[in-house]
């Protein structure tokens, strides 16, 4: 067996372990929490009174206007100066959640307003409350439109979690760096790390395609059909 292959096989378990124990949970948790933040922010921007709208717009402006790496450093290395000390994983989780929240809020806001106003009226006309109309009529339709852009956010997020290495989270990329430090084989190891990211994002892309296909079963809007 060539030496590069045996090195790859040897390091695979620790890389996969880092992936399963840090990369995947960090991705899933921050995406789920970020979606929640994004939904609340989107609803605030659409329906809340002025001052609250200003507040969430400020949040989105800050997050979208500054580098993710800088945000992570601020949370992990900066906050201790004001007495807030966080472990690496929670710090990364907060950073990624805030990031996902800001970006997905824009997506969610856009898909919510893209559902025709007549659908709200139809929901109201059969006696629904605002909440029922939102959850039963508007969200299911908006959700379907949101699948492609949200999937893109999700797949980017998987790769972006490698930035957590910079604040010492022992995720996939950092696990690779560690092995490089002892084996002095950066090319082999980073190719291997890259391949693992590639496999994960490819699997996610194919899941996304299947989900889109499933959701497209009911055709388009009525306007498009008549």
């Amino acid at each position: 067996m060539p030496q590069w292959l045996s090195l790859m096989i040897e390091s695979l378990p620790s890389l996969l372990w880092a992936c399963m124990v840090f990369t995947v949970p960090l991705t899933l948790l921050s995406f789920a929490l970020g979606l929640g933040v994004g939904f609340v922010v989107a609803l605030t921007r659409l329906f809340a009174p002025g001052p609250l709208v200003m507040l969430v717009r400020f949040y989105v402006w800050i997050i979208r206007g500054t580098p993710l790496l800088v945000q992570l450093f601020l949370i992990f290395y900066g906050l201790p100066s004001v007495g807030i000390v966080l472990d690496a994983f929670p710090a990364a989780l907060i950073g990624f959640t805030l990031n996902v929240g800001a970006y997905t809020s824009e997506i969610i806001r856009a898909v919510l307003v893209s559902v025709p106003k007549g659908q709200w009226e139809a929901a109201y006309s059969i006696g629904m409350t605002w909440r029922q109309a939102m959850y039963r009529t508007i969200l299911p339709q908006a959700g379907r439109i949101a699948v492609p852009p949200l999937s893109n956010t999700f797949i980017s997020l998987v790769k972006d979690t490698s930035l957590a290495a910079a604040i010492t989270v022992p995720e996939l990329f950092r696990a690779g760096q560690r092995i490089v430090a002892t084996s002095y084989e950066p090319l082999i190891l980073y190719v291997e790390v890259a391949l693992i990211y590639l496999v994960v994002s490819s699997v996610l892309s194919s899941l996304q395609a299947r989900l889109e296909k499933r959701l497209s079963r009911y055709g388009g809007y009525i306007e498009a059909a008549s």
Partner: protein
Amino acid sequence: MITLEHIHKSFQDNHVLKGVSLVVPEGGVTALIGASGSGKSTLLRCVNLLEVPQSGRVRIDDAVIDFSPGGKVPRNAILALRRKTGMVFQNFQLFPHLTALENVMESLVTVLKWPQEKARARAMELLEKVGMVAKADAWPANLSGGQQQRVAIARALAPTPKVLLCDEPTSALDPQLAVEVVEVLAQLAREGTTMLMATHDLRLAATIASNVVFLDSGDIVEAGPARQVFGAPADERTKRFVSTLTAQTTL
């Protein structure tokens, strides 16, 4: 019985309804006719409060709401009154993510909290009535306009409203598809469904309306039995409008 009293509705400085008073008798069909922009849709939407009037009174049976400028109306009162109505929209507005059957079941399950099976049985009955049982499991996008509108009628009837509000139910349809919708509405009229219907469709109005109300720039110019308003209109404007309708129909 549905009673509107002195309804005023403006959009910014566009005074659309100028103190409209109207009684919709129970068990009859009241056709609302008038030129485009005369306020027919707005009037219908003031009955189920999709539009909230600036002033006036809306009464359906025992539910009454008084509107006054600056006055606050509790959301529950609006909801209670609205739940006595059903609405059929010009462009159908079926829920595209639900099948025909699920569209009809939606109010029963979500609003009235009926169990699935009971809701399904009632929805099937209504689909039967509008001749859409065969398409119960179809997606709205796969139905013709006429079929969609018939499902929309069943959806509006599901919670047994006191009045069915129809906003030009046939005007988005080709004439041959409009026929099937007219037939369904005529059947409902024979069964004594109370309806208030904005329409440009003279055939629809003439075949099923018992009363006609002519609206001109937000004022009711003439109201009375269909035969009288169509046959011997008293007001000059009504005369002119009825003759344009007749001219269109003979084309």
